[in-house]
């Protein structure tokens, strides 16, 4: 019986059960009991006295299909926002993480700034940053910022906040790379910067792909906060439809779209991790 907790072997555990009649049976039992449990749950819900009202309010087929096209179209804005923001976040956060790691007393002020940045922007609720930038910054009436739209400020707010989280993820990755790697690289004559660039950061990033993608998935939801400043993205569009119909079903459309987006992102994470594993580690396919 396998005892290894290696996550990549989940599918192989099923395969390990080949031929052993007991193993096969227990899988069928597990599946059957899950379905029965789910069935009981659903039955409880649909036979409850308030179910017709809830069904009409949340799962109205006509309203669902009527509002879906508009909401899907608005969803394109969410996609634009998170793709743009993520590019800047990945770069800016790496900068903060590197600054945070600069050694020696001479760099203390820079380290301090980086720490203050990550503390502050992880502490402040994202929506407040959106509001302060979106309504506060334009109010300063700086002529060289006239071109900045609410969409710009909202996206900037997301970049500032998420860079703080992602910087800490990078930092964990960088610190998890053994110091002997740095010793080996420096011994070859590589400067501190080149060591970071060619040896440390590439390893660090590969190690933190799951938490990075995790933050990315969180970002896709937070794109809805930009709507507070005016732009109509998917969640806001669904809100509009909800208000027009006095029915919550449009929220289901938005929920569905967000989930459909998350699934490929999660699979992408899995694929990236598996690829690195296969390429680098012993025991991978030869």
């Amino acid at each position, binding site marked *: 019986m396998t005892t290894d907790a290696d996550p990549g072997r989940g599918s192989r555990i099923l395969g390990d059960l080949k031929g052993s009649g007991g193993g096969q049976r227990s899988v069928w039992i597990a599946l059957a009991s899950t379905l029965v449990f789910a069935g009981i749950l659903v039955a409880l819900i649909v036979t409850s006295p308030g179910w017709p009202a809830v069904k009409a309010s949340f799962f109205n087929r006509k309203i669902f299909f009527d509002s879906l096209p508009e909401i899907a179209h608005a969803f394109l804005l969410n996609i634009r926002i998170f793709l743009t923001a993520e590019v800047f976040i990945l770069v800016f956060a790496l900068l903060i993480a590197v600054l945070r790691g600069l050694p020696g007393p001479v760099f203390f002020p820079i380290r301090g700034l980086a720490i203050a940045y990550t503390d502050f922007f992880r502490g402040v609720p994202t929506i407040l940053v959106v509001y302060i930038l979106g309504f506060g910054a334009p109010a300063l009436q700086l002529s060289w910022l006239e071109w900045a739209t609410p969409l710009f400020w909202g996206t900037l707010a997301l970049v500032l906040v998420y860079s703080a989280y992602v910087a800490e993820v990078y930092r964990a990755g960088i610190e998890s790379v053994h110091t002997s790697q740095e*010793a080996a690289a420096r*011994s070859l*004559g*590589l400067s501190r910067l080149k060591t970071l660039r*060619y040896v440390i950061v590439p390893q660090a990033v590969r190690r933190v792909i799951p938490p990075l993608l995790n933050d990315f998935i969180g970002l896709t939801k937070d794109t809805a906060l930009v709507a507070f400043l005016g732009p109509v993205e998917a969640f806001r569009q669904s809100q509009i439809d909800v208000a027009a119909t006095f029915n919550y079903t449009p929220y289901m459309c938005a929920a569905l779209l967000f989930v459909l987006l998350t699934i490929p992102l999660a699979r992408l994470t899995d694929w990236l991790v598996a690829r690195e594993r296969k390429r*680098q580690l*012993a025991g991978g396919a030869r």
Partner: protein
Amino acid sequence: MSSNGRALQLEAVRKSFGEHEVLKGVDLDVGEHEVFCLIGASGSGKSTLLRCVNLLEPVNSGRILLHGEEITRRDVDVNRVRRGIGIVFQAYNLFPHMSVLRNVTLAPRKVLGKPGAEANAEAIALLERFGLADKRDEFPDRLSGGQQQRVAIVRALAMQPDLMLLDEVTSALDPELVAEVLSVIRELAEGGMTMLIATHEMTFARDIANKVCFLDEGRILEQGPPEKIFGDPEEPRTRQFLGRIVEAGRL
């Protein structure tokens, strides 16, 4: 560089980690093309000594001179000094996210500025010389320990250093893989490379060393030609140490 023939000189080098003094005033002298072996128990300071030579650790007092140039002074360009010294560690420390070829060519390309084709050609030639050419596109973790250590040596050689530091490079290997690494080192010695080797492989040391020194608790207790140290050691501690080694069948 005027070096009066001395590749490496340590003068009264002291090194402490916090309260604990590891090197207690070491004097050492390695001539050009000499093979100098450091022997001693674990914790005697061999690794620390090597790491001080390539400036991975700062010394607390004393001087280190490389080819006559004092490298322990404040304003030295550390990266330049390290280009001239190759170090190989016990744990190989290859870069796991790069193929063997890239491991070897990284420093020549990014530090020496060699164009990719040239660096690749030189690397392949080196790998061929040590029987690793067919592994050049593999990733380190796919290789055996002995192969990885040989790649580590090649990686250090690719920078064409004047001095090689080897820090117990066979200690982490399975016994049957030790020989292939030792033969690489022997080849380098025969080629005239100046080497400072910390090792437990006493037979090997006796074979290739020009000079051996016994490091005991941060001090060089005894040094001299291998026949003298292994054959007729003066200090009781040396005799005790070597006696145990012989008992263990390692000499």
